Protein backbone atom coordinates (compact mmCIF):
# COMPACT_ATOMS: atom_id res chain seq x y z
CA UNK A 1 0.00 0.00 0.00
CA UNK A 2 2.00 2.94 -1.25
CA UNK A 3 0.59 6.15 0.20
CA UNK A 4 3.10 8.43 -1.47
CA UNK A 5 1.61 11.14 -3.68
CA UNK A 6 4.11 12.77 -6.03
CA UNK A 7 2.73 16.30 -6.01
CA UNK A 8 1.46 18.69 -3.37
CA UNK A 9 -1.52 19.84 -5.43
CA UNK A 10 -2.56 16.25 -5.95
CA UNK A 11 -2.25 15.52 -2.23
CA UNK A 12 -4.80 18.25 -1.46
CA UNK A 13 -6.94 17.87 -4.58
CA UNK A 14 -10.15 17.09 -2.66
CA UNK A 15 -10.01 19.87 -0.09
CA UNK A 16 -12.85 22.20 -0.93
CA UNK A 17 -14.35 25.52 0.10
CA UNK A 18 -15.62 25.47 3.67
CA UNK A 19 -13.35 22.66 4.86
CA UNK A 20 -12.27 22.31 8.50
CA UNK A 21 -8.51 21.90 8.22
CA UNK A 22 -6.20 21.03 11.13
CA UNK A 23 -2.63 22.31 10.91
CA UNK A 24 0.21 20.81 12.95
CA UNK A 25 3.02 22.90 14.32
CA UNK A 26 3.80 25.15 17.28
CA UNK A 27 4.72 28.69 16.25
CA UNK A 28 7.53 28.26 13.71
CA UNK A 29 8.24 24.65 14.60
CA UNK A 30 6.90 21.75 12.56
CA UNK A 31 4.35 23.68 10.48
CA UNK A 32 3.27 22.04 7.17
CA UNK A 33 4.15 25.14 5.20
CA UNK A 34 4.34 23.51 1.79
CA UNK A 35 0.87 22.08 2.19
CA UNK A 36 -0.32 25.54 3.24
CA UNK A 37 1.24 26.96 0.08
CA UNK A 38 -0.69 24.41 -1.94
CA UNK A 39 -3.91 25.53 -0.20
CA UNK A 40 -3.06 29.11 -1.13
CA UNK A 41 -2.42 28.16 -4.76
CA UNK A 42 -5.66 26.26 -4.93
CA UNK A 43 -7.47 29.38 -3.80
CA UNK A 44 -10.19 27.57 -1.81
CA UNK A 45 -12.15 29.77 0.57
CA UNK A 46 -14.26 29.85 3.73
CA UNK A 47 -11.69 27.70 5.46
CA UNK A 48 -11.61 27.01 9.18
CA UNK A 49 -8.10 26.33 10.46
CA UNK A 50 -7.94 24.19 13.59
CA UNK A 51 -4.57 24.96 15.16
CA UNK A 52 -2.80 24.21 18.43
CA UNK A 53 -0.40 26.99 19.23
CA UNK A 54 0.11 29.64 16.59
CA UNK A 55 1.32 27.71 13.52
CA UNK A 56 -0.10 30.51 11.38
CA UNK A 57 1.86 33.07 13.39
CA UNK A 58 4.93 30.95 12.73
CA UNK A 59 4.15 30.68 9.01
CA UNK A 60 3.98 34.43 8.54
CA UNK A 61 4.26 34.47 4.79
CA UNK A 62 1.55 31.87 4.26
CA UNK A 63 -0.70 33.56 6.82
CA UNK A 64 -0.50 36.92 5.11
CA UNK A 65 -1.35 35.36 1.76
CA UNK A 66 -4.30 33.47 3.24
CA UNK A 67 -5.60 36.70 4.74
CA UNK A 68 -4.92 38.75 1.61
CA UNK A 69 -6.80 36.16 -0.49
CA UNK A 70 -9.75 36.12 1.92
CA UNK A 71 -9.44 32.35 2.32
CA UNK A 72 -10.01 32.22 6.08
CA UNK A 73 -13.41 32.08 7.70
CA UNK A 74 -12.31 31.03 11.18
CA UNK A 75 -9.27 30.10 13.25
CA UNK A 76 -9.33 27.93 16.38
CA UNK A 77 -6.17 28.35 18.43
CA UNK A 78 -4.75 28.82 21.93
CA UNK A 79 -2.37 31.52 20.73
CA UNK A 80 -3.63 33.02 17.53
CA UNK A 81 -2.69 36.69 17.81
CA UNK A 82 0.64 38.47 17.57
CA UNK A 83 2.51 38.31 20.86
CA UNK A 84 3.00 42.05 20.91
CA UNK A 85 -0.17 44.12 21.16
CA UNK A 86 1.38 46.94 19.20
CA UNK A 87 2.38 44.66 16.31
CA UNK A 88 -1.09 43.17 16.49
CA UNK A 89 -2.55 46.61 15.80
CA UNK A 90 -0.82 46.56 12.41
CA UNK A 91 -1.60 42.93 11.65
CA UNK A 92 -4.07 42.30 8.80
CA UNK A 93 -5.35 39.05 10.36
CA UNK A 94 -6.00 40.72 13.68
CA UNK A 95 -7.68 43.62 11.91
CA UNK A 96 -10.08 41.17 10.25
CA UNK A 97 -10.77 39.57 13.63
CA UNK A 98 -11.40 42.97 15.17
CA UNK A 99 -13.75 43.79 12.30
CA UNK A 100 -15.57 40.45 12.81
CA UNK A 101 -14.72 39.38 9.27
CA UNK A 102 -12.80 36.38 10.60
CA UNK A 103 -13.85 34.42 13.68
CA UNK A 104 -11.16 33.59 16.24
CA UNK A 105 -12.04 30.96 18.82
CA UNK A 106 -9.66 30.66 21.74
CA UNK A 107 -9.18 27.36 23.59
CA UNK A 108 -6.65 26.56 26.34
CA UNK A 109 -3.72 24.71 24.74
CA UNK A 110 -4.04 21.49 26.71
CA UNK A 111 -7.79 21.30 26.21
CA UNK A 112 -7.22 21.89 22.52
CA UNK A 113 -4.62 19.10 22.34
CA UNK A 114 -7.09 16.81 24.05
CA UNK A 115 -9.95 17.83 21.74
CA UNK A 116 -7.92 16.64 18.75
CA UNK A 117 -6.68 13.54 20.56
CA UNK A 118 -10.29 12.73 21.55
CA UNK A 119 -11.49 13.09 17.95
CA UNK A 120 -8.90 10.57 16.85
CA UNK A 121 -9.68 8.24 19.73
CA UNK A 122 -13.47 8.09 19.36
CA UNK A 123 -14.20 10.12 22.47
CA UNK A 124 -16.83 12.73 21.66
CA UNK A 125 -16.53 14.61 24.97
CA UNK A 126 -14.52 14.65 28.20
CA UNK A 127 -14.26 16.59 31.45
CA UNK A 128 -11.33 18.83 32.43
CA UNK A 129 -10.75 21.25 35.27
CA UNK A 130 -8.95 23.67 32.95
CA UNK A 131 -11.03 26.79 32.55
CA UNK A 132 -13.52 26.04 35.35
CA UNK A 133 -14.65 29.29 36.93
CA UNK A 134 -13.35 31.36 34.03
CA UNK A 135 -14.69 32.84 30.81
CA UNK A 136 -13.85 29.51 29.15
CA UNK A 137 -16.59 27.88 31.22
CA UNK A 138 -18.89 30.70 30.16
CA UNK A 139 -17.98 30.05 26.53
CA UNK A 140 -16.87 33.66 26.01
CA UNK A 141 -14.04 32.60 23.76
CA UNK A 142 -14.90 33.96 20.35
CA UNK A 143 -15.32 37.39 18.80
CA UNK A 144 -18.54 36.15 17.16
CA UNK A 145 -20.85 36.77 20.09
CA UNK A 146 -23.64 34.67 18.53
CA UNK A 147 -21.36 31.65 18.96
CA UNK A 148 -20.77 32.03 22.69
CA UNK A 149 -22.34 29.20 24.63
CA UNK A 150 -21.83 28.41 28.27
CA UNK A 151 -20.40 24.95 28.86
CA UNK A 152 -21.83 22.07 30.80
CA UNK A 153 -20.10 21.46 34.13
CA UNK A 154 -20.13 18.64 36.62
CA UNK A 155 -18.93 18.32 40.19
CA UNK A 156 -16.79 15.19 40.50
CA UNK A 157 -15.26 14.36 43.89
CA UNK A 158 -16.05 17.87 45.07
CA UNK A 159 -14.31 19.66 42.23
CA UNK A 160 -15.90 21.43 39.27
CA UNK A 161 -15.06 20.19 35.77
CA UNK A 162 -16.02 21.53 32.34
CA UNK A 163 -17.32 19.29 29.57
CA UNK A 164 -15.31 19.76 26.39
CA UNK A 165 -16.12 18.30 22.98
CA UNK A 166 -13.75 16.79 20.43
CA UNK A 167 -12.84 18.63 17.23
CA UNK A 168 -12.80 16.38 14.18
CA UNK A 169 -11.23 18.08 11.17
CA UNK A 170 -12.10 17.11 7.59
CA UNK A 171 -8.41 17.19 6.76
CA UNK A 172 -5.27 17.25 8.90
CA UNK A 173 -2.07 18.65 7.44
CA UNK A 174 1.09 17.67 9.29
CA UNK A 175 4.84 18.03 8.87
CA UNK A 176 7.18 15.16 9.75
CA UNK A 177 10.88 14.61 9.42
CA UNK A 178 10.53 11.09 8.08
CA UNK A 179 7.69 9.05 6.70
CA UNK A 180 7.60 5.61 5.18
CA UNK A 181 5.47 4.55 2.25
CA UNK A 182 2.86 3.07 4.57
CA UNK A 183 2.40 6.42 6.31
CA UNK A 184 4.32 5.78 9.52
CA UNK A 185 5.75 9.08 10.71
CA UNK A 186 8.73 10.21 12.78
CA UNK A 187 9.20 13.79 13.97
CA UNK A 188 12.41 15.61 14.94
CA UNK A 189 12.75 17.07 18.46
CA UNK A 190 10.04 19.57 19.39
CA UNK A 191 8.64 19.59 15.85
CA UNK A 192 6.47 16.69 16.98
CA UNK A 193 4.23 19.00 19.07
CA UNK A 194 0.68 19.04 17.62
CA UNK A 195 1.52 17.01 14.50
CA UNK A 196 0.76 13.62 16.02
CA UNK A 197 -2.62 14.51 17.53
CA UNK A 198 -3.66 16.33 14.36
CA UNK A 199 -2.73 13.26 12.32
CA UNK A 200 -4.95 11.07 14.51
CA UNK A 201 -7.85 13.54 14.33
CA UNK A 202 -8.15 14.09 10.58
CA UNK A 203 -10.82 12.27 8.58
CA UNK A 204 -8.13 12.47 5.90
CA UNK A 205 -4.56 13.08 7.03
CA UNK A 206 -1.90 14.37 4.67
CA UNK A 207 1.72 14.39 5.78
CA UNK A 208 4.50 16.39 4.19
CA UNK A 209 7.82 14.74 5.06
CA UNK A 210 11.42 15.67 4.54
CA UNK A 211 12.49 12.09 3.85
CA UNK A 212 10.57 9.14 2.45
CA UNK A 213 11.83 5.70 3.43
CA UNK A 214 10.78 2.07 2.98
CA UNK A 215 8.54 0.33 5.54
CA UNK A 216 10.79 -1.08 8.26
CA UNK A 217 13.40 1.67 7.99
CA UNK A 218 11.97 3.67 10.88
CA UNK A 219 12.62 1.72 14.10
CA UNK A 220 9.50 -0.34 14.84
CA UNK A 221 9.68 0.77 18.50
CA UNK A 222 9.96 4.42 17.60
CA UNK A 223 7.06 5.20 15.28
CA UNK A 224 5.50 8.43 16.49
CA UNK A 225 2.39 8.30 14.30
CA UNK A 226 1.29 4.87 13.08
CA UNK A 227 0.42 4.85 9.39
CA UNK A 228 -3.15 3.79 10.13
CA UNK A 229 -3.86 7.48 10.75
CA UNK A 230 -2.20 8.73 7.56
CA UNK A 231 -3.78 8.52 4.12
CA UNK A 232 -1.26 10.46 2.01
CA UNK A 233 2.46 11.21 2.19
CA UNK A 234 4.20 13.82 0.07
CA UNK A 235 7.86 14.73 0.02
CA UNK A 236 8.99 18.32 0.56
CA UNK A 237 12.45 19.79 0.86
CA UNK A 238 13.76 21.01 4.16
CA UNK A 239 13.56 24.77 4.31
CA UNK A 240 15.46 27.15 6.55
CA UNK A 241 13.43 29.81 8.30
CA UNK A 242 13.73 32.35 11.05
CA UNK A 243 12.61 31.33 14.54
CA UNK A 244 10.45 34.23 15.59
CA UNK A 245 6.90 35.36 16.06
CA UNK A 246 5.95 39.00 16.43
Amino acid sequence: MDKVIPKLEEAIHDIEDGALIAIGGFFTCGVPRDLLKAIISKGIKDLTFACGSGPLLGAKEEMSELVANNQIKKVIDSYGLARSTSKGLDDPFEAQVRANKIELEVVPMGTLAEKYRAAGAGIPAFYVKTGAGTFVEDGLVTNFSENTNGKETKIIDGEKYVLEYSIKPDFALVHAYMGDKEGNLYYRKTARNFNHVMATAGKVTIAEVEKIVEPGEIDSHCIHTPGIYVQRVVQVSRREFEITID
Partner: protein
Amino acid sequence: MKKFEGLPQEIIALRASQELKDGDYVNLGIGIPTMISNWIEGRDIFLHSEIGMIKTGPLAYDEDIDQDLINASCQPVTEVAGSIYFDISESFAMIRGGHVDVTVMGAFQVSEKGDFAGWNNPSRGLGNVGNIGGSMDLSAGSRRLIITMEHTTKNGDPKLLKELTYPATGRGNVNLIFTDLAVIEVAPEGLILKEIYPGLTTEDIQSVTEPKLIISPDLKEIEL
Protein backbone atom coordinates in the same frame (compact mmCIF):
# COMPACT_ATOMS: atom_id res chain seq x y z
CA MET B 1 0.15 55.70 45.71
CA LYS B 2 3.65 55.35 47.04
CA LYS B 3 5.96 53.07 45.03
CA PHE B 4 8.75 51.28 46.88
CA GLU B 5 12.10 50.17 45.56
CA GLY B 6 12.52 46.43 45.85
CA LEU B 7 14.32 43.46 44.34
CA PRO B 8 15.25 43.59 40.68
CA GLN B 9 13.54 40.93 38.54
CA GLU B 10 16.61 38.67 38.44
CA ILE B 11 16.62 38.57 42.22
CA ILE B 12 12.89 37.82 42.46
CA ALA B 13 13.76 34.87 40.20
CA LEU B 14 16.64 33.89 42.50
CA ARG B 15 14.40 33.91 45.56
CA ALA B 16 11.75 31.88 43.74
CA SER B 17 14.39 29.39 42.57
CA GLN B 18 15.09 28.56 46.20
CA GLU B 19 11.56 27.25 46.50
CA LEU B 20 12.28 24.47 44.01
CA LYS B 21 13.42 21.11 45.35
CA ASP B 22 15.83 18.67 43.80
CA GLY B 23 13.93 16.20 41.66
CA ASP B 24 11.12 18.64 40.91
CA TYR B 25 9.60 18.77 37.45
CA VAL B 26 9.12 22.47 36.80
CA ASN B 27 7.46 24.55 34.10
CA LEU B 28 8.59 28.17 33.82
CA GLY B 29 6.43 30.80 32.15
CA ILE B 30 7.71 33.75 30.18
CA GLY B 31 9.26 36.80 31.89
CA ILE B 32 10.63 36.61 35.44
CA PRO B 33 9.95 32.83 35.65
CA THR B 34 12.27 32.19 32.69
CA MET B 35 15.07 33.93 34.62
CA ILE B 36 14.86 31.18 37.24
CA SER B 37 16.64 28.88 34.80
CA ASN B 38 19.78 30.99 35.26
CA TRP B 39 19.78 30.17 38.98
CA ILE B 40 19.32 26.42 38.86
CA GLU B 41 22.18 25.36 36.61
CA GLY B 42 23.80 22.27 38.03
CA ARG B 43 20.79 21.55 40.22
CA ASP B 44 18.74 18.39 39.82
CA ILE B 45 15.62 20.08 38.44
CA PHE B 46 13.77 18.88 35.35
CA LEU B 47 12.55 21.72 33.16
CA HIS B 48 9.33 20.84 31.32
CA SER B 49 8.37 22.73 28.14
CA GLU B 50 4.76 22.33 27.15
CA ILE B 51 5.75 22.04 23.48
CA GLY B 52 6.86 18.50 24.35
CA MET B 53 10.27 18.34 26.06
CA ILE B 54 11.74 17.57 29.47
CA LYS B 55 15.23 18.65 30.48
CA THR B 56 15.04 21.67 28.25
CA GLY B 57 18.55 23.08 27.98
CA PRO B 58 19.72 26.71 27.89
CA LEU B 59 18.85 29.05 25.01
CA ALA B 60 20.67 28.32 21.75
CA TYR B 61 22.68 30.91 19.85
CA ASP B 62 24.28 31.10 16.41
CA GLU B 63 25.32 27.72 15.06
CA ASP B 64 23.67 25.88 17.95
CA ILE B 65 20.25 26.97 16.73
CA ASP B 66 18.10 24.11 15.41
CA GLN B 67 14.79 25.14 13.91
CA ASP B 68 13.22 21.89 15.19
CA LEU B 69 14.13 22.69 18.78
CA ILE B 70 12.30 25.54 20.44
CA ASN B 71 10.64 26.15 23.78
CA ALA B 72 7.02 27.15 24.28
CA SER B 73 7.93 30.83 23.97
CA CYS B 74 9.36 30.27 20.47
CA GLN B 75 12.98 30.62 21.54
CA PRO B 76 15.62 28.24 20.18
CA VAL B 77 16.94 26.03 22.99
CA THR B 78 19.46 23.23 23.43
CA GLU B 79 19.51 19.61 24.53
CA VAL B 80 21.29 18.24 27.60
CA ALA B 81 22.06 14.64 28.53
CA GLY B 82 18.73 12.99 29.18
CA SER B 83 16.56 15.49 27.31
CA ILE B 84 13.48 13.76 25.96
CA TYR B 85 10.75 14.61 23.46
CA PHE B 86 7.06 13.70 23.39
CA ASP B 87 3.84 14.81 21.75
CA ILE B 88 1.59 17.61 22.91
CA SER B 89 -1.21 15.47 24.36
CA GLU B 90 1.36 13.63 26.47
CA SER B 91 2.79 16.99 27.50
CA PHE B 92 -0.57 18.25 28.72
CA ALA B 93 -1.39 14.89 30.27
CA MET B 94 1.64 15.57 32.46
CA ILE B 95 0.38 19.05 33.26
CA ARG B 96 -3.32 18.34 33.76
CA GLY B 97 -2.65 15.04 35.50
CA GLY B 98 -0.67 16.68 38.29
CA HIS B 99 2.75 15.34 37.31
CA VAL B 100 4.37 18.76 37.03
CA ASP B 101 5.46 19.61 40.57
CA VAL B 102 5.72 23.37 40.21
CA THR B 103 4.69 25.94 37.65
CA VAL B 104 6.01 29.47 37.96
CA MET B 105 4.13 32.16 36.07
CA GLY B 106 3.83 35.88 35.90
CA ALA B 107 0.52 37.61 36.61
CA PHE B 108 -1.24 40.90 36.09
CA GLN B 109 -3.37 40.34 39.18
CA VAL B 110 -3.68 37.85 42.04
CA SER B 111 -6.63 37.74 44.42
CA GLU B 112 -6.60 36.80 48.07
CA LYS B 113 -8.43 33.59 47.14
CA GLY B 114 -5.59 32.51 44.91
CA ASP B 115 -7.33 33.47 41.67
CA PHE B 116 -5.05 35.08 39.13
CA ALA B 117 -5.14 36.84 35.79
CA GLY B 118 -2.10 35.95 33.78
CA TRP B 119 -2.51 37.16 30.27
CA ASN B 120 -5.48 39.40 29.56
CA ASN B 121 -4.74 42.64 27.85
CA PRO B 122 -7.81 44.84 27.66
CA SER B 123 -5.97 47.39 25.53
CA ARG B 124 -6.17 44.94 22.64
CA GLY B 125 -9.90 45.60 22.48
CA LEU B 126 -10.87 41.98 21.84
CA GLY B 127 -12.22 41.10 25.27
CA ASN B 128 -11.35 37.57 26.24
CA VAL B 129 -10.22 36.69 22.75
CA GLY B 130 -6.48 36.68 23.19
CA ASN B 131 -3.49 34.43 23.68
CA ILE B 132 -4.24 31.92 26.44
CA GLY B 133 -1.57 29.42 25.43
CA GLY B 134 -1.09 26.77 28.09
CA SER B 135 -1.52 29.08 31.07
CA MET B 136 -4.97 27.83 32.09
CA ASP B 137 -3.92 24.19 31.88
CA LEU B 138 -0.73 24.84 33.84
CA SER B 139 -2.50 26.74 36.58
CA ALA B 140 -5.30 24.19 36.90
CA GLY B 141 -3.07 21.14 36.75
CA SER B 142 0.25 21.78 38.44
CA ARG B 143 0.73 20.55 41.98
CA ARG B 144 1.97 23.98 43.06
CA LEU B 145 1.51 27.30 41.34
CA ILE B 146 3.98 30.05 42.13
CA ILE B 147 3.54 33.59 40.86
CA THR B 148 6.48 35.93 40.37
CA MET B 149 5.67 39.56 39.63
CA GLU B 150 6.15 43.19 40.55
CA HIS B 151 4.13 44.00 43.64
CA THR B 152 2.35 46.89 41.91
CA THR B 153 1.69 48.19 38.41
CA LYS B 154 3.93 50.83 36.90
CA ASN B 155 1.54 53.41 38.32
CA GLY B 156 1.87 51.95 41.80
CA ASP B 157 -1.60 50.35 41.80
CA PRO B 158 -1.89 47.08 43.73
CA LYS B 159 -1.82 43.82 41.77
CA LEU B 160 -2.77 41.86 44.88
CA LEU B 161 -6.51 42.37 45.05
CA LYS B 162 -9.61 41.25 46.91
CA GLU B 163 -11.20 40.28 43.61
CA LEU B 164 -9.72 40.23 40.14
CA THR B 165 -10.87 42.94 37.76
CA TYR B 166 -9.30 41.15 34.76
CA PRO B 167 -10.68 37.79 33.57
CA ALA B 168 -9.32 34.89 35.62
CA THR B 169 -6.76 32.50 34.17
CA GLY B 170 -7.34 30.16 37.11
CA ARG B 171 -9.36 30.08 40.30
CA GLY B 172 -7.91 29.30 43.70
CA ASN B 173 -4.76 27.69 42.37
CA VAL B 174 -2.01 30.10 43.45
CA ASN B 175 0.07 28.79 46.35
CA LEU B 176 2.90 31.29 46.71
CA ILE B 177 3.72 34.76 45.42
CA PHE B 178 7.17 36.29 45.05
CA THR B 179 7.25 40.02 44.37
CA ASP B 180 9.98 42.63 44.46
CA LEU B 181 8.78 43.57 47.94
CA ALA B 182 7.54 40.41 49.64
CA VAL B 183 6.96 36.70 49.80
CA ILE B 184 3.28 35.93 50.35
CA GLU B 185 1.57 32.60 50.86
CA VAL B 186 -2.03 32.03 49.77
CA ALA B 187 -3.84 30.21 52.58
CA PRO B 188 -7.53 29.40 53.05
CA GLU B 189 -7.72 32.27 55.58
CA GLY B 190 -6.12 34.78 53.22
CA LEU B 191 -2.75 36.16 52.17
CA ILE B 192 0.04 35.52 54.68
CA LEU B 193 2.98 37.91 54.58
CA LYS B 194 6.04 35.74 55.21
CA GLU B 195 9.04 37.71 54.00
CA ILE B 196 9.60 41.36 53.42
CA TYR B 197 12.14 43.48 51.57
CA PRO B 198 14.80 44.75 53.99
CA GLY B 199 13.98 48.22 55.25
CA LEU B 200 10.25 48.05 54.60
CA THR B 201 7.58 47.67 57.26
CA THR B 202 4.47 45.49 57.18
CA GLU B 203 2.54 48.75 56.92
CA ASP B 204 4.48 49.65 53.80
CA ILE B 205 3.55 46.33 52.18
CA GLN B 206 -0.07 46.68 53.29
CA SER B 207 -0.21 50.14 51.75
CA VAL B 208 0.41 48.67 48.28
CA THR B 209 -1.78 45.57 48.77
CA GLU B 210 -5.56 45.70 48.59
CA PRO B 211 -6.63 42.76 50.80
CA LYS B 212 -5.79 42.76 54.49
CA LEU B 213 -2.53 40.83 54.96
CA ILE B 214 -2.10 38.27 57.70
CA ILE B 215 1.32 38.77 59.22
CA SER B 216 3.16 35.50 59.70
CA PRO B 217 4.41 34.95 63.25
CA ASP B 218 7.69 33.95 61.56
CA LEU B 219 7.89 37.08 59.43
CA LYS B 220 11.44 37.78 58.32
CA GLU B 221 13.43 39.71 55.79
CA ILE B 222 13.79 38.17 52.34
CA GLU B 223 16.97 36.10 52.52
CA LEU B 224 18.88 35.00 49.45
